[in-house]
C-alpha cells in the first residue's frame, strides 16, 4: 500500500497524470469540433432549403407578420450617432419601430439627435416599466413624418443591460431585436430573422441570432455597408476568421441539436413576452447576452414548454472589431468576466437532470470547454516550462504532437472559410480567400496567445475581486464614403 502512496507522490505519476489529462481534454475538444463541422454543414444546408420555401420578397409583402422593435443603447456616441441612427432607421420591415436608448451620455449625442430628427420631448412620468431600470428622464419622438418609427429614450446611466431593458419596456411589438447603436445591420436582416418565428412549429422560438461580421476598413455610405473589405491590420483580420469559425461551425452546429446557449448581444431577436417574463437582461453581469439566453432556456424548461434557440448562418450584422492587441485584451477580459459571472449565476444547472440536455450536456460543455479552455491552456504552458526544466519532455514526440494539433486547427479553420465562401458571397475574390487562410494559419502564433492572456486577466480579476466594468473600447470608425 505504501508503494502506491509513494507512487502517487512521485514524479512519474504527476508526469503521466498530467499527460493523460491534457491528451484526453484535447481529444475531446477535437471530437466536439469534428462533430461541429458535420452538424454545421447539415444545418447550413437545411437553412438554405428553408429559405427557398420562404423568400424575403414574400415576407415583405405579407400582412399579419409579427411587429418588430429594434432596441439600441448608446453611450457617448456623439461622433457617429446620426449616421448610425439613419442606418438603423433604413432597415426594411413592414411593421418596424426603432428605439434608441441614450444611456446617460455625457457628450452631445442627445442634442445632435434632437436637431437632426426634430425630436419633440414627451413626459415620461407614466411610462410602464415591467422590468425595473434606472429612471427615464424623457421620451422623444420625431416631428418628421418619415421618422415616425423613431423613439429616443433619455435615461440615467445604468449600463448596457439596463438601457436594453428600458427599450424593451417601452416596446409594444411581439418581437424585440437587441443590438448596438454602432452596428451596421443588413437592410433585409429583420425579414430573414423573422423567418424562424413565422415557421414556428411545435417548439416556441425563444431567441434567434444572426451571424456577425467584422467590417474594419470597409466603406460605409449613408449608414449602409457599401464595400466590404478585409481589414488591413492583423488583429481584426484574424477576428474575421475567428467570427466565421465561431458563428458558422460553433453556433450553427449547436443550433442544429438545439443546444445553443448564446445569442450575441450585438444582434439577437427575442419574443418580448418571454424577455419580460424573465425580467430582461441582468445588469449585474457584463456577459448579459449569454446570461439572458441561459435564463430564457431555464425558464422554458421550468414551464415545460418545448422551445428552440435558433441561428442563421448568414452575416446580418457588421461591427467594428478591436483594432489592436490592447483593445482586444480589454474585450476578451470583459467576455471572460461575463462568462465567469454567468457560469456562477447558473451553477445549479450543472449536471442537473431536471434541465435535461441543457443540464447534462450543454452547460457542462460550456463549463469545461468554453470557461475551462483558457485555464487548461495556461496550465499547459506552465507544465511545458516545468517539464522542460526537469527534462521530462521527449522533444521529437512533443514537436510532432504540436504540428499535428496545429494542422488539425488549420483544417477546421480552412473548412469554416470554405463553407462560408461557398455559401455566401461576402469574400469571394481569390486574394481575399488567400488572405483569410493566411490569417487562419498565423492565428495560433500571433493572436491566440494574446486571447488567452486577455481571458486569464479577466479570470484573475474575478478570482481576486478586482472591480472592473466594461472598459473603454476605442474604435476607429468605418470609412465613410462621401460619393
Amino acid at each position: 500500500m505504501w508503494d502506491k502512496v509513494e507512487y502517487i507522490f512521485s514524479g512519474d505519476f504527476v508526469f503521466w497524470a498530467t499527460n493523460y489529462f491534457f491528451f484526453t481534454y484535447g481529444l475531446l475538444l477535437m471530437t466536439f469540433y469534428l462533430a461541429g463541422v458535420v452538424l454545421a454543414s447539415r444545418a447550413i444546408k437545411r437553412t438554405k432549403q428553408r429559405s427557398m420555401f420562404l423568400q424575403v420578397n414574400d415576407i415583405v409583402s405579407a400582412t399579419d407578420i409579427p411587429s418588430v422593435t429594434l432596441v439600441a443603447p448608446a453611450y457617448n456616441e456623439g461622433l457617429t450617432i446620426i449616421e448610425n441612427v439613419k442606418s438603423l432607421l433604413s432597415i426594411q420591415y413592414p411593421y418596424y419601430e426603432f428605439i434608441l436608448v441614450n444611456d446617460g451620455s455625457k457628450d452631445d449625442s442627445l442634442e445632435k439627435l434632437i436637431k437632426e430628427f426634430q425630436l419633440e420631448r414627451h413626459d415620461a412620468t407614466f411610462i410602464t416599466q415591467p422590468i425595473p431600470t434606472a429612471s427615464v428622464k424623457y421620451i422623444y419622438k420625431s416631428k418628421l413624418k418619415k421618422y415616425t418609427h423613431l423613439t429616443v429614450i433619455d435615461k440615467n446611466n445604468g449600463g448596457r443591460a439596463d438601457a436594453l431593458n428600458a427599450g424593451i419596456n417601452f416596446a409594444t411589438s411581439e418581437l424585440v431585436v437587441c443590438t448596438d447603436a454602432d452596428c451596421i445591420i443588413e437592410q433585409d436582416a429583420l425579414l430573414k430573422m423573422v423567418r424562424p418565428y413565422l415557421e414556428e412549429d411545435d417548439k416556441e422560438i425563444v431567441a434567434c441570432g444572426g451571424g456577425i461580421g467584422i467590417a474594419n476598413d470597409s466603406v460605409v455610405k449613408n449608414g449602409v455597408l457599401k464595400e466590404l473589405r478585409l481589414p488591413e491590420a492583423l488583429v481584426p483580420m484574424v477576428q474575421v476568421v475567428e467570427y466565421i469559425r465561431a458563428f458558422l461551425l460553433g453556433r450553427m452546429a449547436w443550433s442544429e441539436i438545439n443546444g445553443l446557449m448564446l445569442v450575441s448581444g450585438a444582434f439577437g431577436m427575442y419574443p418580448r413576452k418571454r424577455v419580460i417574463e424573465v425580467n430582461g437582461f441582468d445588469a449585474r453581469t457584463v456577459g448579459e447576452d449569454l446570461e439572458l439566453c441561459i435564463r430564457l432556456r431555464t425558464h422554458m424548461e421550468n414551464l415545460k414548454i418545448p422551445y428552440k434557440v435558433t441561428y442563421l448562418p448568414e452575416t446580418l450584422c457588421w461591427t467594428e472589431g478591436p483594432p489592436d492587441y490592447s483593445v482586444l485584451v480589454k474585450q476578451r477580459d470583459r467576455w471572460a468576466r461575463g462568462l465567469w459571472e454567468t457560469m456562477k449565476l447558473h451553477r445549479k444547472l450543472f449536471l442537473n437532470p431536471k434541465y435535461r440536455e441543457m443540464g447534462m450536456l450543454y452547460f457542462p460543455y460550456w463549463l469545461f470547454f468554453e470557461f475551462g479552455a483558457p485555464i487548461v491552456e495556461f496550465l499547459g504552458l506552465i507544465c511545458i516550462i516545468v517539464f522542460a526544466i526537469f527534462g521530462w519532455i521527449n522533444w521529437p514526440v512533443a514537436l510532432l504532437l504540436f504540428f499535428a494539433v496545429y494542422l488539425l486547427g488549420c483544417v477546421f479553420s480552412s473548412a469554416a472559410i470554405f463553407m462560408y465562401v461557398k455559401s455566401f458571397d461576402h469574400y469571394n475574390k481569390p486574394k481575399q480567400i488567400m488572405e483569410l487562410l493566411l490569417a487562419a494559419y498565423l492565428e495560433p502564433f500571433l493572436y491566440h496567445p494574446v486571447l488567452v492572456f486577455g481571458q486569464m486577466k479577466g479570470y484573475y480579476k474575478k478570482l481576486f475581486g478586482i472591480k472592473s466594468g466594461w472598459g473603454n473600447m476605442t474604435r476607429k470608425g468605418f470609412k465613410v464614403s462621401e460619393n
Partner: protein
Amino acid sequence: MDQAQYLDEIFKLRNHKNIYVRREAQIALVVFMGWESLRFLPYLKRKITLWQQIKIVEKLHYLYPTPNLKWLHKAYKTDKVYAKQLLMRIIRKFELHQETDYILEMLNDENYELRETAIYCVQTFALPNEKMEYVKKVYEEGLDQNHQILLLRYIYDNSDFDLDFYVRQLYSENDELKLSVAEILWNNGHKEKVQEFYLQQYQNQSINVG
C-alpha cells in the same frame, strides 16, 4: 395549372409529416375549394404555422373575396389553437363585423397565444357599446398584464370616455396598469382624480417634521 382532378391526391397530403408538403397541400386545397376548404380545419393533425395561416388568408382573399359563412361556421367547431387563430385572422382580413363574437370569445381564453391573436384581430373593429362593455369586463378579469395593457389601449381608442371605469382601474391591484390608467386620466382633464389617488396612499401615514 389548375389540375383540380388531383384534389383527392392532394387531400391525402394535408397532414403529411413534412412541413413543406403539407403546406403546399393545404394551400392547394384553399385554391381549389375556397371557403369550403375550411371545413377540414377541425380534422387537421399538425400545427399550421403563422406563415401558413398568412398564406391561406391571402389566397382566400385573393381568389375568393366573397365570404361564404356556412363553411366558416362549420370550422368554428375546431378545438385546435392554430385553427382558431386562422379563423380569427380570416374574420379580420374580410372585416366580418357580424363574426366578431368569435374573436371576443377568445379574448379571455386560457391560451396566451389565442388571447394575443384575439387582441390583435379585435383592434381592426370598432365595437358597439354592449360589446365594448364585454371587452371591459374581460379587461377587469385580467388573465395577463401584457394583454390588459393592450386591451386598455384598445378600449381607450375605440370607446367613449368612461370615467367610472378608469377611476375603478386606478384603485386596482396592479401598479403597471394603474400607471397606464393614470396617464389616460391625466391626459383627459382628470388630473384631480390622479392627485386624489396619489394623496390617499399616504392618508394613513403620519409625517414627522422637524
